[in-house]
């Protein structure tokens, strides 16, 4: 799946999102992996003992207070967006930034053109776009608006403080 990091296409991403089947059978691939928060919590010791880095994936249904207490234990946190209309991802990303997270925040799931700019403004640096929703046009998404009223994670100053 095309991956944008800091608005640019990258093709040397080391992270693998572990699929449900592998989780089920506890047969994790080698290398850097992203696992659901619940799986991480259940297998924390084993995961930390393996080679390769471990990142978590959270969803809007997860209780993330524990993550917010020490987010930098993870190099990357993926936020899963189940559907276009689910806007919890935006607030979760902002909470992570506020908690001092300085790793990568990656959007996975229903990620497409018309939300890329808002995702970026809320603190996402990596956007994992499904192949069928990707075209060169998505790069335009970041320049559609040259002005904004509110502060966000890209610039905390609202227009009246700029």
């Amino acid at each position, binding site marked *: 799946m095309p991956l944008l990091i800091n608005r640019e296409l990258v093709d040397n991403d080391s992270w693998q999102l572990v699929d449900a089947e592998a989780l089920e059978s506890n047969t994790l691939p080698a290398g850097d992996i992203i696992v659901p928060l619940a799986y991480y919590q259940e297998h924390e010791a084993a995961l930390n003992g393996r080679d390769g880095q471990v990142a978590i994936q959270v969803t809007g249904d997860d209780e993330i207070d524990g993550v917010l207490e020490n987010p930098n234990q993870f190099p990357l946190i993926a936020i899963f967006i189940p559907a276009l209309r689910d806007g919890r991802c935006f607030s979760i990303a902002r909470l992570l930034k506020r908690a001092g997270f300085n790793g990568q925040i990656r959007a996975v799931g229903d990620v497409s*053109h018309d939300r890329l700019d808002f995702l970026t403004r809320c603190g996402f640096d990596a956007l994992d776009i499904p192949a069928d929703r990707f075209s060169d046009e998505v790069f335009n998404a970041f320049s559609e608006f040259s002005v904004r009223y509110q502060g966000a994670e890209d610039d905390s100053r609202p227009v009246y403080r700029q």
Partner: protein
Amino acid sequence: MYQYNQVDQQLVNERVASFRDQTRRFLAGDLPEDEFLALRLMNGLYVQRHAPMLRVAVPYGMMSSQQMRTLAHVARKWDRGYGHFTTRTNIQFNWPKLEDVPDILEELAKVQMHAIQTSGNCIRNTTTDQFAGVIADEIEDPRPYCEIIRQWSSLHPEFAYLPRKFKIAISGGPTDRAASQVHDIGLHIVKNDEGEVGFEVLVGGGLGRTPVIGKQIRPFLQKKDLLSYLEAIIRVYNLKGRRDNKYKARIKILVNALGVDTFRELVEAEWEQIKDSDLQLTNAEIKRVQGFFTPFDYEADAANDTSLDAKLAEDETFAHWFRQNTVEHKVPGYRAVIVSLKAHLVPKGDITHQQMDLVADLADKYSFGEIRSTHNQNLVLADVRKQDLYELWQILSDANLARANINTLTDMTVCPGGDFCALANAKTLGVADQIDAKFEDLDYLYDLGEIKLNMSGCINACSHHHVGHIGILGVDKKGEDWYQITLGGSDGEDASLGKVIGKAVAADEVADTLEKVLSVFVEQRIEDERFIDCVRRIGLTPFKEKVYAPAH
């Protein structure tokens, strides 16, 4: 009123371009239909029974004459020559073509108008008192805060995909003409014991399927904290509001589920984190925006007019209109005029392109070039000299805009209903005509006094039927339209939800049923008691007995 600066204009222009691109990608098949649906709704575009419907924002009901002329032009060029004002003080066009919408938006942008967030699960147009700035009983003009909220909420990157729509209203003083208690957030401008002006904050009000009166979450909020507090409330809602069932997704459901005290704790904890951030409003910004809402150069000698009294004495029809359709202005010698969009047998809130142009001209000539729309679907010329009222009335009368029925039974608030709306369960326009026809006698209406009648064509309650003194809700029973009647609602400072009097009545019995209800009122009324006060005093039983009495 507020005038765009370069940033405001650029944002609106860029939204037009982005919507044009979204429409292009949709028509080219690159944007899936369900995704375009969410995106077009966030720009006010529905697809209705006959055609798309475009809802244009009228921020807190303020329009310039130039903007009104553009609305007339849009109605002529892209629609069928008319528009419809809504309870969110916006205007809807019922017949545009989907592919024309980007051009319409471009035309609107030229006069600082847009359709941003007039629908969709996002923060909608903030509404307020139609007499803001000109009424004596307000503590402070709420419009600068509406504009500050408009800017903060426009294309807010975090809050574009909330669980459900989100509506904010601000009342400028103790008399609530903004229905603030039935909004997701209601803000009341109040003065604290130290004499400082700020906001009382209510949360979790709303109508629709589950009508709820808002609850106080904070008795006093300083002005500088307005945006940080709103952001805290909406962040909690965005994270915790239900997303599994759209009928349970409004903030009122969350507030009720958690209890307002728990909800308050969550909000206050979140607010603690952000209240000292850049979100804090600066005095300079408040002053800058207030600078757009300063009083006009009123004429000092307007108060010396004697012609009005003479006209009132000699022309009874004019005197009725003056009494019903004008309101005292805080500046002596001026009145605020309500332009009735509730003409006899005309769909309520509808206005033709000729009427729009005329109102624009009248605003220029008599009212400093500004027009307001009300949440009861009328227009207001807020600053008219008393000496001009007679002339203005004559012109409005000739244009069918001076029906002297404001705050009477026929000043009905009515959604377009099943004739247009794809969501409606029942039609409303024919029933409104039936009520108009039955209660045409103005003297009778004046005798009845203040009555608010609100009729919605479905449970979504766009016309706020729960808070009408008389509410009518259209329901579908096996393919037929039936109407459920509620009594005792109010959207004012004494907000209450109406109660259903009994089983729904057939379409052709609505006006006759109202006649029975009103006959009970007339019988039981003490002196000049208002209808709503009478209902509250005697309860529903006498009304039920009359309406559902077995036929003889």
